[in-house]
C-alpha cells in the first residue's frame, strides 16, 4: 500500500515535469514567442510581428476605412502589446489576446472621438451594373472586386468585424465571440448576415 502511494507520487511528479517540457516543445507558437519577448528576447517579438502585422493592419483598415487612422491605431495596438509584455500570462490563444486588444482600442478610439461608426454606403446606394452588356473580361473582374469591397465596406461595423476576424485570423466562431465579447449565437448571426450580403454580389 505504501509503495502504491509512493508510485502515485512519483507518477504525479513525472507528469508535472512532462507538462513543463511540453510547453517548450511548441517553442515557435505565438504564446511561447510572447513569453520569450517578455523575458527580453527582441527577436521573438520580430517573428511575432511579422506573423501578425498584415492581418491586424487589414482588420484596422477595414474597420475604420481610413489609412492614416488605421496606421495610427495599428501602431498603438502594438505599443500596447509591447508595454503589456511583463504582465502577459498564457490564459488563452495569443491571437484572441491580440485581437481583443485591437478591438478594445478601436472602440476606445471612436468613443474618445465621439464618432459614430457608420458604413460608407448603404445597400441601396450600390449600383448594380448590367451584366448583359459586353465589357472586357478584366473590367468585369475589377468591377466585381469593387462591388465586393463596396458591399464589405457597407456592412454594419459589427457584421464586418466578425467577417474580418474570420478571414484574417481563421478563428472559429466561439473564439471570435470571446474576442469581441459577445455570445456565440450573436457572432453566428452577424456572420450569417455578412455572408448573405456578400453572396449576393458573387451571384451577380
Amino acid at each position, binding site marked *: 500500500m505504501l509503495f502504491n502511494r509512493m508510485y502515485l507520487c512519483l507518477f504525479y511528479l513525472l507528469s508535472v515535469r512532462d507538462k513543463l517540457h511540453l510547453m*517548450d516543445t511548441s517553442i515557435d507558437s505565438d504564446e511561447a514567442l510572447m513569453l520569450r519577448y517578455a523575458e527580453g528576447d527582441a527577436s521573438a517579438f520580430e517573428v511575432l510581428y511579422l506573423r501578425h502585422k498584415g492581418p491586424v*493592419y487589414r482588420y484596422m483598415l477595414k474597420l475604420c476605412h481610413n489609412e492614416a487612422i488605421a*496606421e495610427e491605431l495599428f501602431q498603438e495596438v502594438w505599443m500596447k502589446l509591447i508595454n503589456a509584455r511583463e504582465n502577459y500570462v498564457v490564459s488563452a490563444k495569443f491571437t484572441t489576446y491580440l485581437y481583443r486588444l485591437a478591438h478594445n482600442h478601436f472602440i476606445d478610439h471612436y468613443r474618445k472621438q465621439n464618432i459614430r461608426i457608420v458604413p460608407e454606403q448603404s445597400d441601396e446606394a450600390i449600383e448594380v451594373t448590367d451584366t448583359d452588356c459586353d465589357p472586357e473580361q478584366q473590367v468585369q473582374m475589377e468591377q466585381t472586386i469593387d462591388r465586393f469591397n463596396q458591399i464589405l465596406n457597407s456592412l454594419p461595423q459589427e457584421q464586418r468585424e466578425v467577417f474580418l476576424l474570420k478571414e484574417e485570423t481563421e478563428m472559429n466562431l466561439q473564439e471570435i465571440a470571446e474576442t469581441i465579447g459577445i455570445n456565440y449565437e450573436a457572432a453566428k448571426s452577424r456572420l450569417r448576415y455578412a455572408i448573405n450580403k456578400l*453572396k449576393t454580389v*458573387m451571384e451577380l
Partner: protein
Amino acid sequence: MSNHEQDDKALDEYLEGNSEISKRYRAENTEGPSSSLDEKILSAAKEAVTESKPKPRIRFHKAPWAKPVSIAAIITLSVSLIITMQQETGQSVMSDSKEINGSLTTPAKKLVKPQSISADAVAPVMQDAEIKLNNDETSYDIAPDEAALGAVGGYREKMQRSKAELEARQRSERKLMFKEKARNEMEKPEVLEEQALFAAPAEADMSSMAAMEPVSTSSEQEQLLLEIKSLLEQGQLEQAKEKLKLFRESYSDYSEEAMKEVIGEELFGMINSD
C-alpha cells in the same frame, strides 16, 4: 427551402472553408503597414527590452536548484508517507507498547521477588487491583462500538485494530501501575513484618533482613539468659548475678516472667533469694 435555411447553408459552406467569398476577399485585400511603420514598431520593441531588461524568468526545470529541490521534496514526501503509513497501520503503537512492555519487565521481575516472599500479604492488594482493572475495562468496551458505528469499510477494521492495541497497551500500563501500588503496599513496615515472619531466610532480601533484626535480638537475649542459667547450674552464683544485673540494665523491658521461663523457676528463684 426557406430563406433562413438557405442562409444557414451558405454559412455552413463558408465555415467549411475555401468558399468563393474567402478567395475573393484574400485576392483583393493584401494591404500591409508601411515599412517605416514596421521599423518604428520593431525599434520600439527593441528599445523597450533594452531599457528595462527584466530578470529572465528561470523555468523550474531549467533552474540549477531544480534537481536538489526535487530530490529533497521526494525524500520529504516519502519519509512523511512512511511515517503516516506506520501511524495508520499502528506499527508505531505496537512498537511503543513493546518498548513499554520491555521497560516494564525489569521492575516487574523485581516485584516478583517480594511477591514470592509473601504471597499471602500481597494477595488482598492484588485482588483490589484486579477488581479495579475489570471495572476500568468496562469503560473501554464502549469505544470499539462507537468506532464501528462511525467507521466505513476497511478503515473500520483498521480503527478497531488500533483501538484494540491501544486498549492492550493501556491495560498493561494499568497493570504496571497496580503492581507498583502493590509493591508500595508491601514495603510498608507492617507488611514487611509479616513478610519477615513468613519468609524463608534464604529468600529474604536486604530489606526483609532488616525486618528480621528484632527476632535476632530476642534470640540474643535468650542466649544471654541461657548463659546465666548454665552459670547457675555450675554453681557460679556471683557471676550469674552480675550477668543478670547487666541483662536487666540493657534489656529493661524484658519481663521477669520471660526470664523465669528461660532460666527456670528454681534457678531464677535462687538468684533472687540472695
